[in-house]
């Protein structure tokens, strides 16, 4: 498909090519850390099974709260695996990272970040008048699911993370990276997870926020798997 990039009859000041300077793409690419071997968060499937085993559909808030220690431990373990995988590949990073601090810090920060995430979920349409506890616990779970691996991978470097979205060929970049793929597909999973709620099937698992949580957990595994296939 030969697309003519003919200049428009009018454009607003500088053209796009002039803004995104050509040097950007390669520079960004180096900023995103890669892993030596794939890490697929299969433990999340276990977590989903565990949540339902504990009676998620009957006592939602209680179950979500009680499973948090498991989540934190599994997240820390996953964090450790990520540091191992990136240590092997990270020849460029000469600076020695304090691995225990990074892992503990990520777990802690995931917990802190659940507060802004809670606000974002509310803004994106979570119920305001009820279910606030459930929504907050959902935010904590999702924060561990999504933020924790990213924090460990990027070693708290926000700019490097933001650069992902400025890169050219963003999809290739995301699906070429196990952690990015799994985290961002998890977000998509949460997003798609809302769809069954308003349907008139009247099943217990249609309660807020079960479908979002499951969507997120399953999405992370799917994302990881996709990036392996990619």
């Amino acid at each position: 498909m030969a697309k003519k990039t003919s200049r428009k009859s009018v454009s607003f000041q500088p053209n796009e090519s002039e803004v995104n300077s050509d040097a950007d793409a390669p520079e960004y690419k180096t900023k995103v850390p890669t892993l030596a071997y794939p890490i697929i968060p299969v433990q999340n499937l276990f977590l989903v099974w565990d949540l339902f085993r504990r009676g998620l559909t009957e006592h939602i808030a209680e179950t979500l709260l009680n499973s948090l220690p498991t989540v934190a431990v599994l997240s820390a373990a996953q964090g450790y695996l990520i540091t191992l995988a990136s240590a092997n590949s990270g020849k460029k990073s000469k600076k020695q990272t304090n691995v225990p601090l990074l892992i503990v810090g990520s777990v802690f920060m995931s917990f802190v970040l659940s507060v802004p995430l809670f606000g974002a979920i509310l803004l994106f349409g979570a119920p305001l008048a009820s279910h606030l506890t459930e929504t907050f616990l959902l935010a904590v779970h999702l924060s561990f699911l999504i933020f924790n691996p990213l924090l460990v991978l990027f070693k708290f470097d926000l700019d490097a993370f933001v650069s992902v979205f400025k890169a050219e060929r963003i999809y290739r970049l995301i699906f070429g990276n196990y952690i990015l793929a799994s985290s961002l597909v998890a977000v998509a999973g949460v997003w798609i997870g809302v769809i069954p709620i308003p349907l008139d099937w009247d099943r217990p698992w249609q309660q807020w926020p079960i479908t979002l949580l499951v969507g997120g957990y399953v999405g992370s595994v799917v994302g990881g798997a996709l990036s392996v296939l990619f």
Partner: protein
Amino acid sequence: MGSTSLATRWVVQLLLIGAHIAGLLLFFRGFFPSKVVLPGFGNFHNGASPFAERGKPQFDKVIVMVVDAMRADFCYSQEHSHMTFLHELINDGKAVPFTGFSHPPTVTLPRLKGITTGGTPNFLDAILNVADDKDQSQGLLSQDSWIYQYKKLGKSINFYGDDTWLKLFPGQFDKVEGTNSFFVSDFTEVDLNVTRHLTEELDRQQSRWDGLILHYLGLDHIGHKGGPNSVFMKPKQEEMDSVLRRLYEYAETSQKRKESVLIVLMGDHGMNEIGNHGASSVGETNAALSFISPKFNHKNEQKAPLADSPDYSYYSSVSQIDLVPTLAGLLNFPIPKNSLGIIIRELLELWPSEKQKLAILMENCNQFMDLFSAKHDKSEHLDVWEKWSQLQDSKVVSSIDDHFDFLLKVQDILASAATNYNYDDMWTGFALTVVSAVVTLITFNSYFLKQSENSFKLAQYFQLFAIVYSLHFHGSSLIEEEHQLWWFFTVLSFVYLAFTCFVLNRTNAFYWSLIFIGIRIIRSWNNSGQKYSSSNTISYYLLNENSDLLWALNLITYLVTTVAIFAQGRIVECLSILNDSQGRNSDFQQAGNLLSFVLIFVASSISFSFKVCQYYNDGYDVPGWLNFLFKWVLSSYDVDIKSLNDPDFKFQLQDLNISIARLSGYFILGILGLRIVAGKIKKLSSGIITDMINISTLYLLQQSKYENIPMFLTFMLIKFAFTKLVVSVQVKGVDIDQLIAICAIFTICMQNLSFFCLGNTNSLATVDLSNAYNGIKSYDVIPVGVLTFLSNFVAPVYWSLSGLQIFFEPSRVLFNSELASKDLINFSFLRKSVFLVKSNVTLVFYAIAAVNLLGSCINLRFHLFIWTVFSPKLLYFASWSVLVNFFVDLVVAFVILFIFY
């Protein structure tokens, strides 16, 4: 295509819109045909009447008292009924109470057809009920009804009340006075106009009649305005109760003269939780139905009033159309030919002999089978035919139960029989919309293919969005809950836009979060959809719990709108007498400032005062700190505050409301006109969009429900934040086609999201009529139609104009008139081509939606919900497509851009 001139592309675009609309209209003609009914009038099947008791009819006279929207609980429930006299009658056995099921659409005209002919309604009746007052085709003169049959016996019928009856039966009544059913803000006068005739009609010396029909509208109006729990509900029910008492006393004195009078007290339909009707919720379909006469001695096991029932079902449930054969039996005439009603079992007890009961039921069966054999031949429904031959067989003993079972079965089959569609029109219409959609997609894609890669990607997203959205038309519950879809798509689209088209930085993140806060607020403002209804909404809180905050917010909204008119646009420049470009503060310029300030201020204060008066008129207390304004308005019209139950005061208030609404409408129109004319003379053409939208916003506020007015504050916030983002994109470099697509996506999402968040749904029940009469004294199709459209579509109109403003005059949205010379509006060669692309982009959305909706209606034409879900959606879609997309998005925008400019 590159060589195609702009003019040709415009012609193609107009043809596509024409084909789209023509296809829709043609489809409508085929989809909503008039019902096929059997011609002729019913006769007794055995020649002689089975109904007569000792050669005489059961009743000599009948009074039918229809109370519009009388839901079953208003008559029978402990909590909602204040009709104590009726309760006494029920407990004395003089009244036989029922809950009457009214077939949807629960709108007056189709319901009246139902309770006179006994037929089930078709959907066209519902549209015509709202649409056309002068249409005579609705007459039932050629159709059999109990009115016809009763008149045929040489009886006379007098009628007072809703003039829909007069439309249905022109010239059939001997003495009449009609009242118009559309003036919903009047609660008292409509009913007094009916009751005042009773003095004469209930006096035997003065009036002779055999049938008297009264149709009271006040209760329905109260429902529309204030809901079922309005403060006016109790006095209105007591008023109805006292009318019933007068009628019953008349019946009692008649009984002593050996003349029996039957009183039927009924609602034509019910109302839902917020007082509207039209759809098929339990509240709307369960109306009251009571047969009352001193002759009755019916033992009612349950003593009235009963405990509240959540499904509005009290005593035994019958179908409203059962009234028709029952009246035929009680008054002794043949059952109307097209009736699907079954004689009510409880009233069958009036005939003591078992044999006669069976004969009566046989008459009913015979009448049913005439209808049945006209529609189904012997090869279908074998069990019915078999049962029928059993019933006819005199050797087989059939019980009353057998007859009722049979009648119910046949009724079920007949009532569910689909209407006859006109397939030629439907398929042609569908084909036209398909052609229009395909060609639109071709022009759309071939255009964007030639543009930059980024705008092509965005165009792909837009198409995908339109396709995925329109798939929802294939599911009935998705249509009912469309507001959820729009929330989902709006959030998705905004996130997509934020990440793909806008720079990721702090400032933009700030404005995006403002937008998300804004849409989150409007989402919580009202209930929408059929599934959930909660009182945890902002509008409920403002209306019922915090009127101070409501009016403070309303005042702020009006203030902000006024300031925006004054400061965003160029109205001050237009009205200043000298063009003082040197910035000298001449007296003349100040005079101009003063003039525009006075005009705008007066217009917005009149409009605000009108909303305050309307609020008071609807039965709410004006907050203390606003009382001075309210009293001042009243005193300037020479009206003294009295009790709201004083009818004189009510009339004065209504007149005041009408004239003040009219005044403010004229004022706003005047300012608009002044701006256009002065702008033309002084050649101040840019800024016209901003001025038009700002001044119209004032009128849109007036057409909104008062509890929704503060939503405009949020709208303005969202518009401001989005314009900030768009301007930053323009500076950073995004091509113009990408910008058109961004604005189109934003506009369509905000139009639909706000539409549903204002409390609208895809059901006819939420069509808001409370602002349809602002400034209008009596029903007139065109102004009432325009006002109804505006009051229901305030948000789509607002966002349609805002979309233009954001695109063409962003600096003015941001109060930044110094940069206004760089706005796109100034590039006249661009306006035509950009407007063409924009109109093509929106047509993609409507064309794809039309194909799916019409396809779904063809596919699901025998679906259970075709008349309750899909048909109303068709009507809503036609309003969106013709009125919003064609009229506002295209015609109005064209006039602003190319004529007023």
